[in-house]
């Protein structure tokens, strides 16, 4: 038991070190002034933003609308019964902007784009495409990891803000059928409940989750050695680890800024 615990701890520390080192290399590459390969990397970034961000707008919008609707209907019908109807906007800001917006957006992006990144890189390893890139002198961090990191960060921040807006506004407009609060009153209350810090923290969480998704999924994709059966195994590990790390980071940011 002690040996098992020790082995798992060592593996966990080694895994964290690998992921952090990959993050360091990717950010270093992102900020590097080197011109070589920038054009090709820009093409990959554009494709990544299109796939992770633009293509995800319908599903993120639909889930945000449903979630906003549920929260607003539940809060809008329950709070007045206990004399706290004025807290509706505050509840929405607390749940959607501070917590659920970034987290659920991250889960959608992990499920949609994280799996795609991991399987794509894993299959590239199996098909010797990565060996071929190395043989051509193409820097894997610059060509494969950094564009996915940058694309995921930009897409996650935009999608998180989009999720918050759709959940707050769309949810209210749909819930309006059953509620009696005028939209102007609702919007004024939202404006009063929402601080600049809330907006900045939701953006910060979006950026952190985007980084986590890209780096962990790229790490697992590149960890495939050569067998096709490793690709789904690494993808499953990537999903579990990304969700776990996103939840841990969410707790850290929430504790750091709100307690």
């Amino acid at each position: 038991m002690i040996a098992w615990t020790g082995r798992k701890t060592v593996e966990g520390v080694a895994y964290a070190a690998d992921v952090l080192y990959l993050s360091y290399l990717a950010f270093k590459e992102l900020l590097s002034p080197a011109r070589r390969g920038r054009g090709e990397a820009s093409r990959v970034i554009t494709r990544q933003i299109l796939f992770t961000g633009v293509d995800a707008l319908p599903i993120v919008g639909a889930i945000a609308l449903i979630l906003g609707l549920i929260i607003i209907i539940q809060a809008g019908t329950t709070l007045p019964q206990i004399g706290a109807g004025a807290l509706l906007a505050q509840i929405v800001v607390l749940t959607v902007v501070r917590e659920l917006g970034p987290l659920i957006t991250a889960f959608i992006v992990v499920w949609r784009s994280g799996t795609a990144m991991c399987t794509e890189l894993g299959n590239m390893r199996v098909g010797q495409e990565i060996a071929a890139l190395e043989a051509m002198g193409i820097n894997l961090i610059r060509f494969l990891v950094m564009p996915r990191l940058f694309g995921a960060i930009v897409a996650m921040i935009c999608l998180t803000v989009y999720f918050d807006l759709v959940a707050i506004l769309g949810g209210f407009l749909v819930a309006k059928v059953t509620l009696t609060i005028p939209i102007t009153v609702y919007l004024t209350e939202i404006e009063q409940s929402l601080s600049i810090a809330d907006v900045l923290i939701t953006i910060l969480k979006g950026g952190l989750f985007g980084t986590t998704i890209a780096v962990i999924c790229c790490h697992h994709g590149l960890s495939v050695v050569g067998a096709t059966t490793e690709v789904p195994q690494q993808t499953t590990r990537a999903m579990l680890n990304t969700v776990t790390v996103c939840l841990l980071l969410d707790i850290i940011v929430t504790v750091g800024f709100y307690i």
Partner: protein
Amino acid sequence: MAESALELDHVSAFVADTVHVDDLSLTVQQGEIVALVGSNASGKGLALKLCAGLETPAAGEVRLLGVDLAEGSDEEILRLRQRVGVVFDKPALVSNMSAFNNVALPLRYHTALAEGEIQDRVMARLSEYGVEALGDRFPAELTIGDARLVALARARVMDAEILFIDELLLGLDADDLVRIRGLIEGFRREARLTVVATINAPTGLFGLMDRLVLLRDGRLVAACPPAEVSRVDDPMVRDFFWNN
């Protein structure tokens, strides 16, 4: 005497703790066309990767185009990579890029050439290998033979000085073999490009090689011109050449 393009000095390498290349020494001169010959699991594939600097030896030294692969700086290795072309046993084309963009990739990555110049160079290489009509197709839409020819075009688009080809005969039909024969004859006439290829079965292409390097269980059995193979007194060589 021509300068050597590749030198292996007592090189050994392991895969999963098993010796796959054992104490291999070999020198390939510039412009020479050499085949590493052996049956499957003879270690020729790993030997090729060691030669191309894609694997690190456990012992020994590899010098490629004058650069010691263990001692070269990152910048030296990067420059070296642009002078070396590698074709893997799988075509290894980037699957979400068209054949044209695959061939253009090294030029777009390493050079600041205008797009028009890149287009001219890529089309010239695709035409040279007879696959210019396939430029718009994605790797999944190509036959293995055509994909390997596109990979060959990509390996040469930077005007590589040395070309490594793993499993030269893999996926090639009769027409492709005629094309490959023509290409090797072209390389011989050019006398500038060094070629190292692995071959795992007897073929009429042996006659086009300057030397055959015969490997068994990761060890060098013999290195000689094709005409002298019959003089090699080794059971593996007899089985390989005369029983097939």
